[in-house]
């Protein structure tokens, strides 16, 4: 496949002599990369080690004592962070490459052991008392700091998840913890707020040009959380007039994300907009059809789904062309 191919291309004048030589050289000593395998091994190693240590501590808590366990976790944590501070490249508002492959995983180990440390303190000694908000706020702040300071996307994602937990905890700590009873309205608005915050974060990240490559994570979580809470709100207030507000919210958000994804040429968010908007519109249509409520409306509904899906296919194909041309 290779050599005759390049000979032909060269003979046809499509490859210059210079390029032809370069290609030939590259084909002569191909390098076999085990990068992917090594990354997987590192990931697995950290996962196994942390899980194993977790179980080990849990099993032997009676014999080794809390202070020793805490000390050990603190040592792992401090060691990892010390390594990271020593080896990191200087901070910059743009993307900073990690100094070596192991760096990311050592940082990850440090962050996880820090979370374990705080959780352990709280669980065993109730350092924060019943103030669960504070107990989750501190790990969150540390995670956000590490994510920005060492430029680690994985940590950022953990930080965002922790933000969600912190908001969930601080809004309704008592009900959640004492009765494990989800007050759905409060949860709904909390997560709506979270989603909007994340979307603002995504916008701000891009607008101020500060760690622009973090935008994807903010937007990814933000779009999903906001759309789902809006749709959940629509179904929660299904019979009341407030549902219309949520519906309008869905379409407004869809419009905004649509504009943004056109600007940034992001097919992923474009697809999300199309899917969530389609769910919204279809739920309106289904609602209408149910109100008619005879067998004829079922036929109509089937035709609607067939027709609308065909329409959407053409829409997607056209949007794709538009994005490529833009």
């Amino acid at each position, binding site marked *: *496949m290779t050599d005759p*191919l390049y000979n032909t*291309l060269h003979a*046809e004048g499509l490859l*210059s002599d210079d*390029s032809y030589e*370069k*290609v030939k050289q590259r084909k002569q*000593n*191909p*390098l076999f*990369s085990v*990068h*992917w*395998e*090594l*990354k*997987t*091994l*590192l990931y697995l*190693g*950290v996962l*196994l*080690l*942390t899980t*194993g*240590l977790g179980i*080990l501590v849990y099993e032997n808590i009676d014999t080794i004592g809390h202070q020793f366990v805490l000390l050990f976790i603190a040592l792992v944590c401090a060691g990892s962070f010390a390594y990271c501070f020593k080896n990191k490249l200087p901070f910059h508002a743009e993307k900073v490459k*990690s100094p070596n492959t*192991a760096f990311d995983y050592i940082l*990850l180990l440090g962050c996880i052991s820090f979370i374990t440390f705080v*959780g352990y303190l*709280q669980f065993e000694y109730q350092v924060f008392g019943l103030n669960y908000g504070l*107990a*989750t706020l501190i790990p969150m702040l540390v995670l956000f700091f590490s994510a920005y300071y060492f*430029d680690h*996307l*994985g940590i950022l994602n953990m930080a965002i*998840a922790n933000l*969600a*937990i912190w908001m*969930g905890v601080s809004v309704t700590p008592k009900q*959640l*913890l004492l009765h494990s009873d989800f007050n759905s309205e409060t*949860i709904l608005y909390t*997560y709506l707020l979270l989603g909007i915050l994340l979307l603002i974060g995504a916008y701000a990240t891009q607008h101020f040009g500060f760690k622009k490559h973090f935008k994807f994570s903010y937007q990814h*979580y933000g779009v*999903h*959380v906001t759309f789902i809470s809006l749709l959940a709100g629509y179904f929660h207030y299904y019979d009341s007039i407030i549902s219309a507000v949520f519906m309008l919210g869905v379409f407004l958000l869809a419009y905004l994300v649509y504009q943004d994804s056109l600007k940034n040429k992001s097919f992923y968010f474009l*697809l999300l907009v*199309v899917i969530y908007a389609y769910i919204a519109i279809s739920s309106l249509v289904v609602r209408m059809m149910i109100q008619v409520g005879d067998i004829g409306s*079922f*036929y109509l509904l*089937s035709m609607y789904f*067939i027709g609308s899906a*065909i329409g*959407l296919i053409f829409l*997607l*194909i056209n949007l*794709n062309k538009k994005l490529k041309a833009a």
Partner: protein
Amino acid sequence: MIAYNKTWLANLLLQNEVKQDLQNGCITDAEFKAIAAKYPVGFYTPNLFVRVGLFILTCVIISFSNGLLTLLLASTDLIETPAWFLVLGIFSYAALEFMVNSNHHYRSGVDDALLFISACLFATGFAILFYHNKAGMYYLPLTGMIFLLNLYFTIRFADVLMATVSCIALLAFVFFGWTRIIPGGLTTVPFIMMLASAGLYWLSFSYNKKVPFIHYQNCLIIAQVISLATLYAAGNYYIIQTLSDELNGGRASSSIPFGTVFWVWTIGLPLVYVGFGVKRKDTILLRTGLLLIAAAVVTFRAYYHILPVDIMLVIAGAVILGIAYGVMKYLKTPKHGFTYAETNDPNLMDHLKIESLLVAETFSTAPSAPADIGVKFGGGDFGGGGSSSNF
């Protein structure tokens, strides 16, 4: 033979090959454009996100169309026969041929969905058909039929999923054929399965390099992975013992004949895979071998509890990290044609930052965390798969 335009397929391969050179900086942008213009590809192949969207929408269309058709014919007897699924399958297949031949869809989501649905409909139809003729031989004709069907789809559309199913169906056919037809087949079936999968591996490996099969490379790679896995499974101690228990009528037996052979197979074969993978620089062998080492460890632990699970995990984690560190140190400068640097092909996974999502999925725990709804909302969209993303 293959349904897609062959010239375009060849041109696509050529463009992909040359694109790698472009990314490695061997050729210039202008040269790449000239080559792409000289060897055009006329397929409609959108990017992955559009492909996913089109796949979902096509599934919606087909299921509602089928529902509507069934409803319209609800009064007739036709829809109660297994033939109805075959009829619906034929409709989907006709739509597929149409999309591929006149609209030149190639891996666009539309053709994937139609292929998937028609294969499912045909398989359901056959399953019901054979179930109705209760002669005690149910799986044998079914697996045979599914194998032939999916083999046809694989040959016609060079689809990886179809290739996967047809390989599994073929091996299942051999298994059921041997155990049902040959008396006492259960004792010898491991060796037959080993032979069958080794044969399949040899075939797919040797034909992968041949020019007439160039469009089936991905299918043959999948065939290699599956045959390597079944070759291992055929001699795995745990699987053999479960089978022989079944032979004894559900009684658990303490030992099995040729036990040592199977233990050697269980532990040794993954290492052989890895060894050959490194020696021949064969990614498939190497990765399958690495995965099967985990299987070997799990099998071993199922019989011998040498260490409690926590210590095992700690040791395994430390050993793995140590090995990875050692290999990285060793390959600081590329040796023997190996490197641990990333290759230059920007992988689609990088765009999604899958590794970061994966990290968030598996590691996001917090002290006294009652409501991690936020994790559920966002995290689970792209599970599986790793990436070479540099954070």
